[in-house]
């Protein structure tokens, strides 16, 4: 068995620490200049305006109209790109499997027209909010705001005793060392794995290392939900 590569681990730790060091000053120093942030527009419009000028190296894969994305090696995100983590994405759901709320402002026009498709049909880098728009796992549903709403207020009407239940454990930690990790979450309305696990919008900690092998569930299976282990008594069939 291959020994853990300590040098690689160290580089990774240093890389994450560097990301923290880079991100916090960006947040605290750069962002307060609201004028520097371009008006929020649909990514499709922005990309068209800047045809030929690569905004980020990751734009390419998302302009591929084919069903299965060609996901190139992404490398480390550019310092100016905000890539939400798995935990960020969790924080947008009330419980595992709940529809995430919309983390960006929704204009009055967008609220009426629900024209979310330009950014979310294929996803892609959105310079307006300096992040990647995730690709919807269910483009066939177009009454988007039926399930996804933007939060315009932070206060509650009344306090709540709701407790968000623990999320399923990270799949890798569950099974045999070296085995393909099982899928720890529900799949309903999330059948397209590359929405969350591939491309620039994927949280780095759950981004697949092998997007080209798009038949994901060949190796990764959903965890059961409390089913008992199969057992069979020796004489279950009765005597002949």
């Amino acid at each position, binding site marked *: 068995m291959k020994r853990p590569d300590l040098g690689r681990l160290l580089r990774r730790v240093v890389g994450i620490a560097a*990301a923290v060091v880079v*991100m916090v000053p960006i947040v605290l120093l750069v962002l307060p200049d609201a004028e520097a942030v371009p008006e929020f527009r649909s990514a499709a419009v922005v990309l068209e305006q800047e045809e030929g000028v690569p905004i980020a190296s990751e734009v390419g894969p998302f302009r591929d109209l084919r069903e299965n994305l060609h996901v190139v090696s992404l490398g480390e995100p550019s310092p100016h790109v905000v890539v939400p983590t798995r935990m960020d994405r969790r924080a947008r759901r009330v419980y595992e499997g709940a529809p995430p709320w919309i983390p960006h402002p929704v204009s009055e026009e967008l609220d009426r027209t629900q024209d979310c498709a330009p950014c979310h049909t294929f996803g892609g880098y959105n310079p307006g909010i300096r992040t990647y728009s995730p690709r919807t796992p269910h483009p066939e549903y*177009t009454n988007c705001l039926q*399930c996804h709403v933007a939060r315009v207020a932070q206060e509650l009407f009344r306090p709540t005793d709701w407790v968000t239940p623990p999320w399923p454990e990270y799949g890798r930690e569950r099974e045999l060392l070296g085995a393909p990790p099982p899928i720890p979450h529900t799949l309903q309305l999330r059948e397209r794995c590359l929405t969350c696990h591939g491309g620039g919008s994927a949280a780095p900690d759950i981004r697949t290392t092998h997007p080209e092998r798009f038949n994901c569930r060949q190796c990764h299976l959903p965890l059961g*939900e409390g089913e008992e282990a199969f057992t069979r008594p020796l004489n279950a069939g009765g005597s002949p």
Partner: protein
Amino acid sequence: MSVWDRREFLRRTALGSAAAAASSLVPGVTFGSEVAAAQTQAVEWRKAPCRFCGTGCGLLIGISEGRAVGVRGDPDSPVNRGVCCVKGYHSVQALYGRDRIQRAMVRRNGRLVEVPLEEALDLVARRLRETIDQHGKDAVAMYGSGQWTIPDGYAAMKLFKGGIGTNNVEANARLCMASAVTGFMTSFGLDEPMGCYEDIDHADVFVLWGNNMAEMHPVLFSRILERRRLDPQVRIIDLATRTTRTSYASDRSVLFQPQTDLALANGICHEIIRSGWYDAGFVQDHVSFKSGRTRPGYGLEERFQFTDEPRDADWEEYVSFLEDYTPDRVAELTGVPADEIRYLASLYGDPSKKVVSYWCMGVNQHVRGTWMNNLIYNIHLLVGKISEPGNGPFSLTGQPSACGTVREVGTLTHALPHGVVSDAAARERAAEIWQVPVDRIPERPTHDTVQMFRALDRGDVRFMWIQVTNPMVSLPKLARYREGALKDDRFVVVSDVYPTPTTDVADVVLPSAMWIEREGMFGNSERRTQHWDQLLEPPGDCVSDTWQIIEVARRLGFDDLFPWRREDHVQRIWEEYTRFHDSPRHRMGTYEELRSRPGVMWPVVEGRETKWRYNADYDPAADPELGFDFYGTPDHRARIWLRPYEPAAEEPDEEFPFWLSTGRVLEHWHTGSMTRRVPVLHQAMPRAYVEINVEDARELNIRDRDLVRLVSRRGSMEIQARVDYRGQPAPGQVFVPFFDEAYLVNELTLDAFCPISREPDYKKCAVRIEVPGRTGSP
């Protein structure tokens, strides 16, 4: 800061990423709840219908360690096929508001104080008895809603009509779908739709009459959009007074002036006949013509009475009646171009297209709501597009069991679980099943909802028990009825799950078990009854509304009417109740079928659901010789009614130049007492507002988010203006959602109602807009 702007979004996203990255550097240390990971616990997924609207989505509720932890759409549900809306997905959070009513309360010295439940139930029973003794049995009343489960409504009916002997049972559904009931009854002789949601999979054209489905019935609207995605020839037509999300998603948006839908429907029929697009054979074989009284009034007078006098009409008379509704004349009245009217007629009239019409409150909450229901049926009957897959008129409901409880159990003053109180045979059948003397059930109805609250104000009703609804937000012309409820010598009992403006007027508050904290059944818009088991223990002293009624009934000495044990009373009630509907026209699923399936659509004949009634190809109760058999009427024919356009009860004038319409928004359901306690929903839609047309706003010098004052002849309120917002009213109109108890728009609305259905018109009254701080009205 109350609003997340773009900068805050970026800041939080980056900070969240940084926190999560930091957490990976220091194992074992968490950085806030967002990065907490924990062991997965076993979650059991159990079925229940959604708590909110009348669509009746099937949910799977995740239960873990005695708490609800999540929701999935039930993939096996034929209603929603695994998808919900944002309210459904977060519905379980409504169970956990910290201010849940967990103890009984009694008002002492003006304040509600907690008392043991038994003491409160004793007091309710004693005051009921005293009021009956002093003022007669018609001085006590029960007011429920379409949120009642079927056992709740049945227990209320049995206590009040079978036990006490008064017809004083009403429900919020009167404010919501009474016009649909009277529409069905007058056109077909039987209530509830002939078709089902499966029509969506077969239709080519969807005509939405005053129905913002994208927000109010979003799951069904998504099914329509899916249908159009699969067949791009499909067309969605939005007929409305206001531009909404539905308009934007539709292929055609047609705006008409308020109240003129009556003329529009007649105009479509005029054009269908003029163009020869009607189905002469269908009309000849299956339709008869009726006309009724015109100018029936608006119900504004105290002790209003009206009885329609139907008389036979014929084809010639109908054609002559429609001569008033030429496209040009209708265009003048409605504001809809004549070509558009011809186009609508051509959609209905094209024999190659299957057409479904949907409507809800726009048609029902209408001073001519019954007529408007009749007129939509007229169109479908004229072209023979009814009772078959993809063809049919379909009345949607707003409450989860408006059909199942209020319409089928009959929790309205004139009704019984089967038939009406004025029908001797129906009374005899009820008396037989309830095992009470037949003369205990009075043959005369008492008060419809609005008039019941007028009676409370006058003092004709002295005791009112309100369960599972919030009339002190939802009644029109609210101030009068609130003052009435607060009068001395009025005793108001409220059973609810949260404090509301209605518990503010209560003398006793009873703590109710909510939804999945008790066993129950709801019946949705497509005749589908859905059962759920008790999945959670209710908090504190909370008990179901059914059991509250049974406890009070036993204290009144009606033990023999309610002999059931707590463990199986829901099953016993179901078995007794379904005896009322034991015929091929309405037979319901068995208790066991309901428990094992995601809903059962009645009539159930030999174990099979009936998807399309009145069509012998699908409905075993229909006569195969007739093909289409409208067996609810004596002549087995459906009715085409001659119903004219008449103006609204109050229309804009110089002093009050704007139409006021009220309604809902996607995020909140009804008066918001549950959905506002769901954090995501409240944060997405925290307060009410008034939508003003952009041209009107410019003329009045009102900017988006300015504070304005709305004034009607009944009241006034200050509220934030939204210009060019989610909905866009036509010029001369404003819209206010009614979910927010801080902005009681019903202080402004008018309590005019449809004289036949007695359902108020919440969509039309006159207001003016003032800008606080400016002299004079603009």
